[in-house]
């Protein structure tokens, strides 16, 4: 039937003397009485738990032998040494806070108990666990996923990959609104960065951004203009949004042909408002649940539209930097096709560009799909990071480790 579980965070057995407390023994009777009181108190607590139908005690502290003994006598199972996270998770699922023996007045039923449907012991490999079916008061039902593998290290990596996949699924359903506000908040951060003055740093770091096989975008005569550009952190803005019926077909329903409608990325610009050349009547830039087939399509699409924008751009610096970013994007699909035989990257690139030019739907990839929102966040983060690195002109080596701002008061002086 239904059983109840109790959470505790401290030992149930009262100690003879607490920390910093001195227990003075005057007489034999007093000492014996104290010991007996301790044992009697534990027994009373256990009797109370039994009468409140508590069958499981979940404790984060180690319980003494007396507690285990009386618990066994009264038919209560004890699980000790739970971690803080497990206690917090159980508290959140069941809405129950831990029981304090001191604050209990010992009358009436204990109210702070969690209800569990089952709690049998379980043998996993060589570890003994208890499998508790807590009934949850919040929206979700707790489940456990058991990952098996030959070695511990493999299991940890699988667990981390699974965490990543779950995070990606959460991000999949976010939307990006098409608003000025989005660009303005982004530009605020940009203005905080200091200006960079060194030619060499900009040039060498730009080299790393561009692809080896692409044509040189940096003209030696234009390098000054480029440096000025970096100082003001203006990079290319946006990409056309062919919003039309295509958007609807992307929502996780990739059976039908996909239109290339999903390349919407908002990048930051100078202190002016974000220039979004988004046409179309949909209100959000990226709809929730937008996906694209894997295999480099996102990068090629973004590359195509950035180049397209760069050609139409009036300012030559923005055009040049847009071209750099567009060509850098191609490094991803190049990596993906590196292990396959022959010129598969060139083949893929030409095929995709042709379909784009003719406005045809993208071919379906049999390997799966990826989330547009996640990719969008990725591109933004990369551009932020690149902008910050390009503004550094000197790295200073220090002997003392840096402290966080909050710790300033506790810093000891020499």
């Amino acid at each position, binding site marked *: 039937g239904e059983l109840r579980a109790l959470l505790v965070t401290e030992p149930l057995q009262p100690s003879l003397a607490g920390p910093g407390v001195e*227990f003075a023994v005057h007489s034999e009777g007093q000492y014996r009485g104290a010991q007996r009181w301790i044992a009697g108190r534990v027994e009373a607590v256990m009797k109370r738990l039994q009468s409140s139908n508590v069958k499981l005690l979940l404790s984060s502290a180690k319980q003494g032998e007396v507690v285990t*003994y009386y618990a066994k*006598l009264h038919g209560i199972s004890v699980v000790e040494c739970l971690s803080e996270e497990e206690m917090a998770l159980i508290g959140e699922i069941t809405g129950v806070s831990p029981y304090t023996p001191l604050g209990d007045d010992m009358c009436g039923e204990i109210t702070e108990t969690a209800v569990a449907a089952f709690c049998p012991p379980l043998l996993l490999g060589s570890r003994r666990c208890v499998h508790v079916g807590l009934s949850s008061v919040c929206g979700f039902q707790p489940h456990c996923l058991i990952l098996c593998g030959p070695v511990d290290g493999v299991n940890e990596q699988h667990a981390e990959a699974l965490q990543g996949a779950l995070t990606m699924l959460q991000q999949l359903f976010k939307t990006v609104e098409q608003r000025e506000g989005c660009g303005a908040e982004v530009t605020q951060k940009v203005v905080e960065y200091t200006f960079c003055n060194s030619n060499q740093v900009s040039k060498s770091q730009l080299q790393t951004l561009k692809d080896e096989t692409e044509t040189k975008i940096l003209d030696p005569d234009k390098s000054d203009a480029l440096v000025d550009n970096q100082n003001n952190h203006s990079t290319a803005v946006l990409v056309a949004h062919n919003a039309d019926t295509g958007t609807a077909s992307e929502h996780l329903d990739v059976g039908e042909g996909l239109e290339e409608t999903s390349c919407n990325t908002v990048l930051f610009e100078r202190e002016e408002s974000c220039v979004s050349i988004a046409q179309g009547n949909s209100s959000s830039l990226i709809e929730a649940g937008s996906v694209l087939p894997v295999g480099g399509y996102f990068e090629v699409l973004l590359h195509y539209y950035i180049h397209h924008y760069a050609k139409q751009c009036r300012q030559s610096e923005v055009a040049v930097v847009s071209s750099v970013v567009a060509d850098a994007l191609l490094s991803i699909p190049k990596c993906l096709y590196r292990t396959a035989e022959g010129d598969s990257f060139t083949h893929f690139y030409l095929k995709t560009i042709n379909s784009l030019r003719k406005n045809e739907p993208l071919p379906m990839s049999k390997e799966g799909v990826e989330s547009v929102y996640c990719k969008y966040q990725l591109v933004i983060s990369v551009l932020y990071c690149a902008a910050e690195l390009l503004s550094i002109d000197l790295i200073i080596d220090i002997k003392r480790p840096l402290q966080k701002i909050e710790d300033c008061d506790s810093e000891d002086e020499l």
Partner: protein
Amino acid sequence: MSRLEATNPPLFITLTKDTASQSLSLLSRIFRSSYGPDGRLKQLHNGMGGCVCTTSQSSAMLRHLSVSHPVLRVVTASVRSHVSRLSDCGLFTAILCCSLIENFRSLNVAPGTVVRISTHLLSLCMDYLKSEACCCRVSVDFSSVQTLVCLVRSILTSKPACILNKTEVDHLTMLIVKAFLFTVPCHAETNAVLGKCVIVPVKGRRVVDSTLLPGLLIEAPEIQLAKPLTVKRTGSDRIKIALFCVSMSGDSFNPEEGTIAVHHGISLEMLELNQLLNVGEQLVKDEVGLVVCQKVIHPSLKQYLKENHVLAVDRAGLSLMEPLSQMTGSKPIASIHLLSPGCYGSLKDVCVESFASKHFVHLIPEDTVICSLILCNRSDTAWDELKRVCETAEHVLQLTMKEPLALLGGGCTETHLASYIRHKSSSLSSSSFKDLDCSQTQYQLVADGFCRSLESVARSLNHDDGEVLTDMVYGHCWFVPSGYPSVSKWSDLVSKCGCGVNDNTEDLNWRLLQGQSGSPIIQSCPKESSVKVNDFLTLDCFAAKCSGLQVALETANLILDLSYIIEDQN
């Protein structure tokens, strides 16, 4: 001022096909040479002193072997985790894993393709082993002990470090099977739990002196043998037992935190002793016949109990507490200040036994779910090995109870599986090749490598320079001793196959098992042998071998997939 010292940068190694190949082949040689009943022993020994371990078991070797290369550490970690779960087939897993890595690395196929194909091969093997039509498995019939005896005998004979002759093997086999049968409860309830067999060490005696006793033995050096034991019994002719898990020596008054201030004229030791004597009075009043304490009992209390005809046994140890409480139904008392009558248990009888020069108090319960195996062997190292073997045997019997199947031993399952895979892989449809994204040649190469690895495990059983053959009809493994004249036919030289099922009455088409890939072998589907189970089969644990196969292949795939090692040198 805290300083940050420059730390060593991480070491970055690119893995090639030759990485760690020498260390891998050394590890593989160590395992191969210890495999099977004719395996050679390894002595583990620290130059600075300490005890010496002579063993051929993987659990003992891997625990002490220190491996430095990260690739090999993955292999040893997987084998250790397999052994910790299933106790058996550790060497099989290790040898198969090393052999798979060596064979797959020598192929000219991309690692990704090899991994896909080998996973498909593994699924073919597991489907075959789990199907009814599998010809190398035997179902275990629990109405007779024949198969259980074969299983235990195979395990005992496969560990040569125990140094047992035939009579000793037979004697121990019967004892272990009997011990296992004792641990099965007589009345099947819904929550029936298997009991435990506690192994009691007696070193320096002959193996045939080992005996099995129901109940538990607690070593008690001060009990004299001469006096017969008179123990107080309750009305129903049972003996009441009180079990204490707390120390009764009068020194438990130190609190963990805080301090105790004692006033003048009061002695805490006297207080504790008085309390102990009160406990003694209470025990006598409750007609308790036997008091067992995990830790030490104060001599005054012991004397008092003795005067009142209550038997007191102390220093029982933590490992005996759980079997004692399970056997007698008593709950270990955790405080000397509150005794509750609901925590006593009951026993049928208590007597004193002695073996070699040790004296034990023998507690006999009403139902014998817990039993004690007094294990004797001549030397320390042989005894250690024997204890491990007995624990493995008990675990294998428990696993067999869960899944009542056994596989043919002696290398026959490995060669039979290899024949099956050779047959299956030559008749796969082209759609499977498309699914796996490989060509037929690649598949054949990988399948050949897989089969050769399985056969190499069977070949490792042979340590004495003879030949190892397999037959093309049943796919079993046959050993030919060395020193045969070169012009004889195979059928004159073989007598029985590795597991004992087949003999040489029919003309089976034998061929030599080779290490290198030779000409392609045309194999028809291996058949089931017509001979039924008899008393002299060699059998292996089904669950352990299947899991070993899986672990070996998954670990080999993991190693093949590795491209880089990044090591933190701090």
